[in-house]
């Protein structure tokens, strides 16, 4: 064989740079910190916050009404006692998973492109888990007794049922929230020090000074800091997989047809990452154009995220196929009926919408031009968000509303308060996110500086 020829086949074109060339430490520091320090409060930001805050007040109203009247204001009726609360819980927590994937798993895999997006993806995780956590608490009916879920010394001499996946969920979600918050804060410390050093106003300097804990960038500190980050990444990686596994066990360890299935853990984790990347795209596309961050969050980032979505979407499609196959192959009459009910029952329209949103439409991402088109990507990311919500609706409602005994079948209709609660958690999410982009660096300054350094090194060596 001609060695020259084979070399040509292997040689790949020069890879696109992760961030646009021409940046120095100072320009990236300026660019990112200026958004917080000198850009000021713009009308657009205030308007966005207003929308978020209004919805948050709607949540306030619903929660108050829920406390006064009880969960009966929602559409949950036997046999469908889980309804929107659990659908939204699983949806929000799934969204959170992409943030941890980007910050932990991709760190371990040395994927440099993650640097520009990990900070706001992690923020997304934390806010999404906050929204998720509200639903099981509210769904308990008497949320003020939530501490019954915790093992604490009590006059009834009782323990939580440690063999129940619902109690596992309490431990999984609270650990997940704590670890995500710590990981995020550790990442922020050096950036807060940068803001402290660049802030002009003494009060602003003091506030960032307090939160930066007196970080001064000592070589010894950096060494322990990097060790801690690496260990946290290693710990967060199995954690994120365990969280959605435990969430799926809430379903899979029951006997309900359509839930009692061993494919649930892997298929839930893939679905979580799928919806999470869709949400990262939904957030990243407008943010980068409003704040002119196209240099740092480049088209290549969007392209890679689209590919991750495509890959996880295919795993999810495989999950659907297996579910359908197993329903018929199992020979179980109720499983078979459940599947027929999904495909052609009263909620069949939603099932086929789910297939369209999660499987059919995202196949457009095979086409490079679609992945490079901002408008297309944005629309597809919204479609996947809707699709993943529908998936949870299909799993929760269709399985519950017609199970073993036809005499106890029923229909589930969400009420306006169901929708209001859901919209309200969007309010919480949007409010938190707008406060985040106003007061904290939404891209990790330190990591982008390191990236600039590495890129310059590579250039000088070659």
């Amino acid at each position: 064989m001609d060695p020259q020829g084979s070399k040509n086949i292997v040689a790949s074109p020069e890879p696109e740079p992760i961030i646009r060339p021409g940046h120095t430490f100072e320009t990236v520091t300026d660019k990112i910190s200026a958004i917080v320090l000198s850009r000021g409060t713009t009308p657009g930001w205030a308007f966005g916050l207003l929308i978020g805050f209004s919805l948050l007040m709607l949540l306030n109203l619903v929660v108050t009404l829920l406390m006064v009247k009880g969960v009966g204001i929602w559409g949950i009726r036997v046999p469908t006692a889980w309804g929107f609360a659990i659908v939204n819980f699983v949806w929000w927590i799934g969204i959170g998973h992409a943030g941890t994937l980007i910050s932990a798993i991709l760190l371990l895999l040395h994927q440099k492109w993650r640097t520009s997006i990990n900070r706001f993806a992690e923020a997304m995780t934390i806010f999404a888990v906050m929204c998720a956590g509200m639903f099981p608490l509210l769904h308990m009916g008497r949320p003020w007794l939530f501490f019954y879920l915790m093992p604490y010394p009590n006059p009834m001499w009782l323990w939580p049922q440690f063999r129940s996946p619902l109690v596992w969920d309490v431990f999984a979600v609270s650990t997940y929230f704590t670890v995500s918050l710590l990981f995020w804060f550790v990442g922020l410390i050096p950036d807060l020090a940068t803001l402290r050093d660049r802030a002009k106003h003494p009060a602003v300097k003091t506030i960032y000074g307090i939160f930066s804990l007196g970080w001064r960038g000592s070589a010894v500190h950096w060494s322990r800091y990097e060790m801690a980050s690496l260990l946290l990444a290693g710990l967060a990686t199995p954690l994120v997989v365990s969280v959605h596994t435990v969430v799926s066990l809430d379903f899979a360890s029951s006997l309900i047809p359509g839930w009692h299935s061993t494919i649930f853990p892997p298929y839930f984790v893939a679905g979580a990452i799928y919806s999470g990347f869709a949400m990262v795209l939904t957030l990243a596309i407008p943010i980068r154009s409003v704040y002119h961050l196209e240099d740092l969050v480049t088209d290549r980032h969007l392209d890679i995220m689209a590919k991750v979505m495509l890959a996880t979407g295919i795993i999810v499609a495989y999950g659907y196929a297996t579910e359908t196959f197993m329903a018929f192959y199992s020979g179980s009459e109720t499983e078979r009926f459940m599947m027929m009910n999904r495909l052609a029952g009263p909620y069949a329209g939603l099932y086929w919408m789910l297939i369209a949103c999660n499987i059919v439409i995202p196949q457009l991402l095979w086409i490079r031009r679609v992945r490079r088109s901002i408008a297309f990507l944005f629309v597809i990311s919204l479609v996947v968000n809707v699709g993943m919500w529908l998936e949870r609706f299909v799993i929760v409602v269709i399985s519950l509303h017609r199970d073993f005994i036809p005499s106890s079948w029923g229909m589930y209709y969400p009420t306006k308060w169901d929708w209001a609660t859901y919209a309200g958690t969007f309010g919480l999410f949007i409010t938190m996110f707008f406060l985040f982009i106003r007061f904290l660096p939404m891209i990790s300054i330190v990591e982008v500086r390191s990236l600039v350094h590495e890129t310059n090194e590579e250039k000088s060596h070659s």
Partner: protein
Amino acid sequence: MKRESIYGLMAEFETPDQVLEAARRTHAAGYRRIDAFTPIPVEGLAEAVGFDWTALPALVFVGGLLGGLSGFGMCWYANVISFPMNIGGKPYNSWPSFIPITFELTILGAALTAVFGMLALNGLPTPYHPTFNVERFELASTDRFFLCVKSKDKQFDLAQTKAFLESLKPHGVFEIEN
């Protein structure tokens, strides 16, 4: 003990390679109480200033172990000692169903140790530190790299050390007031 009026001397450099080289030469010249301050983590710099071992990984391991043991211990104690219930003749110590909580608390214990251990070993939070008295030190969080020789060093002599640091061709040398 008398408080020194000078905390040390600080030299400013422009690139990571310069500060790394300067740190190595300072260490080779016999200075031991030295530190470097950089806007990004620089590979090899901690070793160059004489830092070669951290207890952090060992602490995190212990934290994880304690978390896991307390998780399993709690489930076991609740179901075997404190409130045993015979459910269909199954064993009280049904350990497989205790694994998820054991796992989560292992991660929690290890992660809390990693973060708070890192902060504690680094002596953070430190609201006041003499290095902040150097005006140009603000740039240590943007694009300048600093090397510091502390006055506590046995070899420290204001004039000599200053001359030595000047010989490393820094952008400038500053005295750090205590």
